[in-house]
């Protein structure tokens, strides 16, 4: 029964947040594709004045790509392809935090908590369903939309190049390697969820606790922590705030080379600390949902 309930609770979150979980990433994918096609048209139309034979910028770029060796192509083109994922990954982080902040606040605000609580679903299961939505469902949905948009772009480029002399496989598919790229982004999204666990848990806790505007609390408390540390801490620098700050950064701020399995092993203490802090927040949120009534 718990499994069936969990699936229904996850569906319920999707029904409530279709805009964030379906329409917004779909629009993002659409814009991405439009940008790629637009860029293709522009670069095809534009010509370089330095070239005697008036080759288009697009063709010029392809010529340069052909001239590179495999390793350079992978570094350059793979990097661009990876960079194009960042808007989706950043959007997913912001959407997840925004979702978690409202997830239990809104049900108290519109008093629908009385309906949800009239059903035989435990507070723990409800809170876990919201956590799972925030840390796994939202990142995966954005990842899927990102991958679809990128693959469609690749197909568009492939269609453009078919029939030309350019070796499509060698200059496009091989350096980009969509399969390896997919696993890399999957690893990134999972690691980001674990790395940001204290913030996700904190957002969930505020959502269960705040009687008004959890967003204000979300930013206000860390600022208050920083001020208190600055005034009262016997140590130099801000220990708690700096730890929170480190966990607030998107991992994509790190370079490709440094973010890998090795990084995870080095940062294992930080990861475990974050997960523990997140779990404490989630446990507190479960307790609060059991105690709190509507606002």
């Amino acid at each position, binding site marked *: *029964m718990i499994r*069936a*309930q969990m*699936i*229904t*609770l996850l*569906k*319920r979150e999707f*029904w*409530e947040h279709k805009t964030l979980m379906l329409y917004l990433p779909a629009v993002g994918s659409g814009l991405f594709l439009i940008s790629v096609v637009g860029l293709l048209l522009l670069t095809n139309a534009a010509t370089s004045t330095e070239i005697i034979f008036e080759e288009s910028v697009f063709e010029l770029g392809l010529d340069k790509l052909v001239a590179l060796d495999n390793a350079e192509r992978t570094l350059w083109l793979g990097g661009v392809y990876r960079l194009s994922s960042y808007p989706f990954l950043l959007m997913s982080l912001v959407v997840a935090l925004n979702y978690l902040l409202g997830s239990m606040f809104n*049900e108290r605000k*519109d*008093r*629908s*908590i*009385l*309906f949800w*609580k*009239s*059903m*035989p*679903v*435990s*507070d723990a*299961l409800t809170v876990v369903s919201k956590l799972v939505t925030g840390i796994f469902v939202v990142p995966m949905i954005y990842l899927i939309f990102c991958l679809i948009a990128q693959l469609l772009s690749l197909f568009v480029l492939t269609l453009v190049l078919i029939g030309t002399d350019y070796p499509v496989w060698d200059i496009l598919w091989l350096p980009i390697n969509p399969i390896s790229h997919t696993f890399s982004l999957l690893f990134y999204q999972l690691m980001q969820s674990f790395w940001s666990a204290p913030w996700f848990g904190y957002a969930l806790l505020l959502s269960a606790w705040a009687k008004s505007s959890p967003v204000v609390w979300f930013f206000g408390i860390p600022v208050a922590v920083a001020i208190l540390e600055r005034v009262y801490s016997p140590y130099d620098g801000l220990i708690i705030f700096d730890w929170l700050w480190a966990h607030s950064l998107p991992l994509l701020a790190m370079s490709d080379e440094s973010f890998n399995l090795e990084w995870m092993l080095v940062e294992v203490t930080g990861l475990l600390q974050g997960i523990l802090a997140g779990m404490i927040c989630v446990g507190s949120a479960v307790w609060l949902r*059991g*105690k709190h*009534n509507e606002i």
Partner: protein
Amino acid sequence: MNAVVSVQGLSKQYGSHVALNNLNFEIPQGSVVGIIGPNGAGKTTALKAMLGLTSFSGSLRVLGRDPSKGRHRIMQDVCYISDVGVLPRWLKVADALSYVEGVHPRFSRSRALELLDGTKIKMNSQIKDLSKGMVTQLHLALVMSLDVSLLILDEPTLGLDIVYRKAFYDRLLADFVDETRSLAISTHQVEEIESLLTHLVFLNDGELVLASRIEEMNQRFITLQVAPDKLEQARQLGPIGEQQLLGRWHLIFDSVPPEELTVLGETRLTPIADLFVALVQLEKVND
């Protein structure tokens, strides 16, 4: 008869305000209990305590369980409609059915569809597009499709017009009330549920004024319609309340033998609202 709900010494305080003060009553299996009282009497607080939605002191057992622990287990056998429309505005009717089906082991989708069939509610409508009456119809259909032992209704028809209110109680009578299932209703519109009730609980300012079976209440409290010339004689018998209507006096008596009253005028059953007002005024006088 087994008690579905057993309340002993139930108290609740919000800061210095006493919302419930040492309540004792039971809801027997198969009963329809009216929880009657003015605003602020503690009706909603008492119902929320039964549902594990608020903390309390004292002893409270719902179907043998403590609602403050494991609310979700109790909710397999209990359902609740609150005083205002609490179905989320963004939810679609079809999704509401899917949700309840997914989380409640005793939900019958076919029953819900059958109940909704006679209404104007469309499956693809969102709750925000429905009128208040339709939202109540939908909520009632969802609840009626649950095979539960106890249904708790807190002012379920508040804000509805008379047509919807009548339809609501007709449906409730036809589809829910039987010898095994119990119903607890709190409402201001006492007259509408008077014929349904088997028991009643009067609350005022968080205090229990009366908890009684309707039959016992009818035997104990009698209203006497008396002409002005016999009024003083009737007053000698110690009425607990009196009011003048269309030139005749209506006096309410507590535990006075009927034969002593019939010689003074016409006797009849005491309406619940009149009895409640009389008992509350009597308490004020005694205080």
